[in-house]
């Protein structure tokens, strides 16, 4: 059931995207738990405000939007930031203040917080304004390893990773191209 629901929501995301809007990724419970809208993940932030955490997940998806990646990959990357913020007060301040500024800008433009902006283009426009700053760079830099060095994500991109234990690719398709 869970999986069917996920699929339904993912296809809804694709549908909404073509209409110029995307599904918002997460909600925060009164108990402070961040819940994925696709019900595939949840997080209990240890350092960051849960609202901040949820906004960072949305922001992470907006920075490297891969429609075939479930939100849990972005949430896992933000969990790394949360862990970093636990031991690095400066990082925590950067993230909390950065999200606050982002929300303020969204409020000024569309009378809603960042996560309330239904149109990806509106959110990206706000990110463009801050892309050279330390807050954006902290979130983006974290994603370079948070997303692309996540071994669970590799098969989704068609990357097979380690091969030496399997004898390399000499018998496993290093020259199997058939369309040239």
């Amino acid at each position: 059931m869970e999986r069917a629901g996920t699929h339904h929501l993912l296809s809804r995301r694709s549908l909404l995207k073509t209409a110029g809007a995307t599904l918002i990724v997460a909600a925060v419970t009164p108990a402070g738990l961040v819940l994925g809208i696709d019900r595939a993940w949840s997080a209990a932030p240890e350092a960051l405000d849960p609202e901040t955490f949820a906004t960072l997940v949305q922001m992470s998806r907006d920075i490297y939007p891969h429609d075939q990646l479930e939100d849990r990959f972005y949430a896992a990357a933000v969990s790394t930031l949360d862990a970093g913020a636990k031991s690095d007060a400066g990082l925590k301040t950067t993230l909390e203040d950065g999200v606050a500024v982002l929300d303020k800008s969204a409020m000024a433009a569309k009378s809603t917080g960042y996560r309330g902006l239904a149109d990806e283009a509106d959110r990206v426009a706000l990110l463009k304004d801050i892309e050279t700053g330390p807050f954006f760079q902290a979130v983006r830099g974290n994603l370079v390893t948070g997303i692309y060095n996540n071994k669970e994500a590799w098969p989704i991109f068609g990357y097979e990773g380690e091969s030496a234990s399997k004898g390399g690719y000499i018998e496993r398709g290093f020259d199997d191209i058939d369309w040239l």
Partner: protein
Amino acid sequence: MATFDLNDTGVVVIIGSGAGGGTLGNELAQKGVKTVILEAGGRHEIQDFENDEWPMFGKISWLDKRTTSGTWRVAKDFAGLPAWIVKAVGGSTVHWAGASLRLQEHEFRIKSAYGDIAGANLLDWPLTLAELEPYYARAEDKLGVTRTNGIPGLPGSNNFKVFEAGAKKVGYKDVHTGRMAINSEPRDGRGACLQIGFCFQGCQSGAKWSTLYVEIPKGEATGNLEVRPDSQVLKIEHDASGKVTGVVYADKDGNQQQQKARAVCVAGNSIESPRLLLNSASAMFPDGLANSSGQVGKNYMRHMTGSVYAIFDKPVHMYRGTTMAGIITDESKHDPSRGFVGGYEMETLALGLPFMSAFLNPGDWGREFAAALDKYDHMAGMWLVGEDMPQEKNAVSLHATEKDQHGMPVPNVHFDDHPNDIAMRDHAFERGSAVYDAAGAVRTLHTPPYPSTHNLGTNRMSERAQDGVVNKHGQTHDIPNLFVSDGSQFTTGGAENPTLTIVALAIRQAEYVADQMSKGNI
């Protein structure tokens, strides 16, 4: 395995164990010369290698503090990482791709061949191709270079087949799987390539030549070579006559040790070698050792580089197999009608997904960038590597205030692209895209230079002492028993990957050093 006493004044000390130092160490040991290699990094054998980009990067890269300046994009994207080189026994032969090309005849004399180029500090090598040819032949045999010595070429991977198809369609003639120091069949006690990929992470099959498991064990087996890992040389010492007498190094516990020496050969790659000479300044040599010309650290070259990645409708899986076994040499000629002097090679290249995301266009983000990575398994890739212009202002210098973990000033690496470098890169990008467009690419991407893997020229060879740091044997003009044994000797860079030339020079230098010792000159 030999161990030599710290007070043994008869040993030759080599600083660094890569293509230059590791080769020189074995060659001297084979001639019966007592040799100590001091290597700043640790000794990671083949079983320590991982097919995993970031963990291996963390394990073997030179990550000590360095700073950058200049207009090159690396200074913006990777401000603390000017070079992507190795700090470990074997040096950068652990992570090198294996491309083994001779410099071309005219590339030894570009001041004569190209004429004056504004802003460039051109100089002819004090060596000719003819003089180096016998040593190239020995280097090719040592490395087991494919397409030499009757060794067949490597088989073509998917990435090569796309590259070859496009090359033929645009009319390139000289396209093949390269001259590679990777066994295409068993040789020298090592097996044939298994097409593992991950050449940059250390070859787990040992098919690729590296000083780590080829030269160094052979040298150690003679009883004449000792390799001391985790030993970072801080200063070269000299006596009142101006001859070097030994080195001070930090051992694995950070304690300073003094190793005496009959001669010292510096092979720390083109950032650390000049840094060490500059950090060894004394009352007698206030500008650093071997620096009467003022050229130590100057004329830093890194090759004109760039990459083209192309996305196709159908899968390529470029990461499967040998990383760089593919070359087009048609553009390597000197043909000023293209709008620049010198030439460039086009070579296949693949990165894994983790490195691709970091290097494809550093700092970029958004849907267009993500869409390219969505097609990672439909990508083919090539690297462009060509001759860059030596410029005196491009230099490795000592930072005024920043110090490393041993209290020594860190190096700053300054680089500005020369207009010729930019014109060549633009041309190479256009031709790279043309190759892939001809093969049916739906999108091509121009990737800016990675942190430098080919670091050259900062202790250059010259005929006259006032023009450079070392003579045609790598012997410093100023101090007869002080040598430079790495790519920092290069007077100019040529278009070719430098390792084969570094090895050929090391073989030649070993003969010279042994001869000079036997004659009592050093």
